[in-house]
């Protein structure tokens, strides 16, 4: 036994060092990027604790395996069998009960954290209705009467998202905020978040929803209380009707289409293909299937100016949307290139 004890000592030392080292690693050095919410605070702490426990267990088992491999190999010429040990009730009881106690403890810990994380929301919660669809996001603030294509949140104010899907299962996830929640057609799912850091983030869809899943994103802005109030006022003020820009008054559809081709290449081609033939997004040139559901050129314009491009909906200028519309209409022979473009007549041009 003495021989074994002597050999055992360095390995016990190794096991201790590995275990302690990995715990230190996880508690001090390791961090998941950019926590920016109350929920992330809980989740990061949970992950650190759990990774530490796991790494201790892992270190112990690896050390045992290393020791076994180095100490108990068959020596050359030794054909005898090993020690005839069939079991040890005490040891077996320990390695059944001890893990049982550990997992029970971890369960309780997890339950407590979950409870703290999803506690009841106070009165000042900001309610946001989230609509997910293939492949974008729409946000509506029911208490404020504001619609938006991006999510505006107030720092340190709890928000409750009420989420619905128009088609398939999607999932709402802002990595820096922590938890994700699937969005399921036919029911409303909810997610509570309290962002803490002012900044710009991105919501991604985290449930495979088809070809556009990778790019199904929307911007998220977390701003101070003052800035949030300013934003609310700005959004609630009815938009002043602007007269159509005169720049289009004397241009032909063909001329606008030329300009529109450049805009298309920069903003649309990555989903609709370089020649509009379709890829992630449907074909826009050569096939009118996707266009036809908008009925008229006005319907099509309304759609693209508010919902496109998918990853930055509504971000182009009015002029650019007009140029894009002309490009699509001319390429599909829905509007002759030499006609003077008249924005007020878009409702009379059928798309089919």
């Amino acid at each position, binding site marked *: 036994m003495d021989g074994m004890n002597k050999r055992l000592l360095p390995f016990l030392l190794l096991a201790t060092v590995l275990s302690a080292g990995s715990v230190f690693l996880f508690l001090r050095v390791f961090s998941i990027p950019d926590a920016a919410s109350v929920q992330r605070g809980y989740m990061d702490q949970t992950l650190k604790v*759990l990774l530490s426990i796991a790494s201790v267990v892992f270190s112990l088992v690896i050390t045992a395996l290393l020791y076994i491999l180095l100490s108990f190999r*068959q*020596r050359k010429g030794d054909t005898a069998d090993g020690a005839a040990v069939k079991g040890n009730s005490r040891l077996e009881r320990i390695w059944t009960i001890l893990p049982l106690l550990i997992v029970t403890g971890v*369960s309780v810990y997890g339950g407590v954290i979950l409870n703290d994380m999803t506690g009841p929301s106070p009165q000042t919660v900001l309610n946001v209705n989230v609509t997910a669809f293939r492949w974008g996001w729409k946000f509506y603030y029911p208490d404020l009467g504001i619609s938006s294509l991006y999510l505006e949140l107030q720092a340190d104010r709890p928000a409750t998202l009420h989420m619905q899907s128009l088609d398939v299962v999607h999932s709402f996830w802002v990595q820096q905020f922590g*938890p994700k929640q699937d969005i399921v057609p036919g029911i409303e799912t909810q997610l509570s978040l309290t962002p803490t850091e002012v900044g710009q983030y991105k919501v991604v869809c985290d*449930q495979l929803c088809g070809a556009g899943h990778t790019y199904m994103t929307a911007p998220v802005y977390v701003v101070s209380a003052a800035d949030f109030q300013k934003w609310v006022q700005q959004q609630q003020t009815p938009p002043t009707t602007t007269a159509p820009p005169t720049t289009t008054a004397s241009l032909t559809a063909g001329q606008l289409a030329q300009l529109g081709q450049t805009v298309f290449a920069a903003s649309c081609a990555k989903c609709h293909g370089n020649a509009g033939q379709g*890829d*992630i997004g449907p074909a826009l040139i050569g096939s009118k299937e996707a266009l036809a559901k908008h009925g008229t050129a006005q319907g099509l314009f309304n759609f693209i100016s508010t919902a496109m491009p998918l990853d930055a909906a509504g971000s182009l200028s009015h002029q650019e949307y007009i140029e894009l519309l002309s490009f699509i209409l001319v390429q599909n022979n829905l509007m002759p290139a030499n006609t003077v473009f008249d924005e007020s007549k878009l409702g009379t041009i059928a798309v089919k």
Partner: protein
Amino acid sequence: MRKFVSLGITRGVLGGAAGTGAGVGITMLIRLALGLPAWNSGPVWAAGILAGVVGYLAALGLFNYWICWFFGAAETEEQPPESRSWTRYLNVSTNHKVIGVQYLATALVFLPFAVILQLVARTDMSKLSAAFLSTEAYTSIISDHGIVMLFIVAIPAFAGLMNYFVPLQIGARDMAFPRLNALSFWLVPAAGLLMVSALFAGGFDTGWTIYPPLSTSYQPLGMNLVLIGAYLAGFSSILSAVNILATVLKLRAPGMGLFRMPLFSWTAIATTILSLLFTQFVAMALLFVLLERLTGMGFYNPAAGGQVLLYQYMFWFYSHPATYIFALPGLGIISEVIPVFARKPLFGYKGVAVSSLGIAIGGTLVFGHHMFAAGMPALLRIPFMITTMLVAVPTGVKVFAWLATAWGGKLRLKPPLLFAFSAIILFLIGGLTGVIQAVVPADLYVHDTYWIVAHFHSVLFGGFLFPLMAGIYYWFPKMSGHMLQDKLGKIQWGLMTAGSALLILPMFALGLEGMRRRVADYDPTPGFQSMHLTTAIGGFLIFFGLVILFYNILRSLRRGALAGNDPWEGKTLEWQVSSPPPAENFLRAPLVVGPPYDYGVTGSVHAVFPDKAGQAQGSAEN
């Protein structure tokens, strides 16, 4: 040429083609008679394929006995005594050893196919060149990789080893239902063919989990092929489970109480209980998807009174126990290999045996952990967190028992033991990360990220792939009569172990950094590309390991050293007969008199073979 045409598999293919043609034609005629347009790819192909499967099975001759019995005719001649030609594997055989090899060979044919699919995807994601896969192609490839690996590689590979070795280990002559056994096997190549064909019929971009409404409303024909293929594979699994359970429970040799039975047969019980009782749920979940696609029945359509989450509940009710179906036989193989190669009894045999049932039963209560973010009632997540963590306890019993078995032994570092040790490490990583994910707040972050992908590859490599390699190196000598080359085995082991580390560890990091799974692209983020490249390199190393395996197998079948009855000095019953075993396994019936792993225990004997005079003989021969 005559020999080719007379092969069962040729008849099967022809019968399948004829059946498909007939099915397509009849369906089109019925549609015309109903005033519908004759052609609609979904229903017409579905009917055609189902008719094709019936034609394929009938042409193979799998229904002959029951048809004759139905008409009261005399049973047709059984096949003439076992030919030793390799063509017997291309025919219908009711011998469990032939069927076992057929299952294993099928799995080993589809394994490199599924690996190569993922190698293509990993290469695309390494961004060494511009993306060469469209989003749909990428998603179809990873989806097919998953479903082929699980239904056509993992389940059949272990079905093959269980079919071959459970009857031998328990001292039986064959399985309880040999004809049913043949039917169970022949469903698998058909299922595999359908799942591969799906890639040429538009693919499917739902992931292997096939969630509706994405699967019901937005998928091309390929989705239907996968659904039917999965249904056939599930059917095969259920029938095979009936057989194995009946065999183990009723056909054990005299003296073989359950606690004198080898561990691999214990895990066979645990595995087949799960296959028998739970596969039906995924079958129904998928059948409802197919029905909704073909007929518009609104199982999962809220507008028609259905419920989207219903699918997820039914799917995961099976698919969680399925993970134990994939892993339990592997854990059984590790329990077989360590005592033999450490020359020590299995430590705490009873605990390890019972833990197999503990894992199986516990594993039926945890399925909700796949749905923590799904929209399940929030409070339900707590009991699932608790049950998921409890499954770690019987799993830990196995791991600690293995360590204790090896401790103080005289380890023979042959490939079976090496693969078993790598398996333990990988399974441990998977298990520990599983305990982490069981905690709901942690899962709400890592769910549907690369962390999860890393976790399940870890448990699958540790519970399935590496034990499969250990099992192949351990039992190939028994199946073929030749030894596999040690040196090649060790090189393969090195490549696969290193490759697994390079594949799995970066994916944990990627997941924590927020990389979602099932996305075809990623924003330029520091470190992401090099981590993806590393996983791709790991994948290629594993593939090279598999190439070495195939070379080793093919070479050793002809030129490997003769194995003899018991090259590893094992005590269990399969090592007491010739390699390969005689057609009826035991020339003299065994009488089990002691435990199966008493290496080093003086005077302990597992089984004797009484001759006609009742004299105990040590060997089953003459």
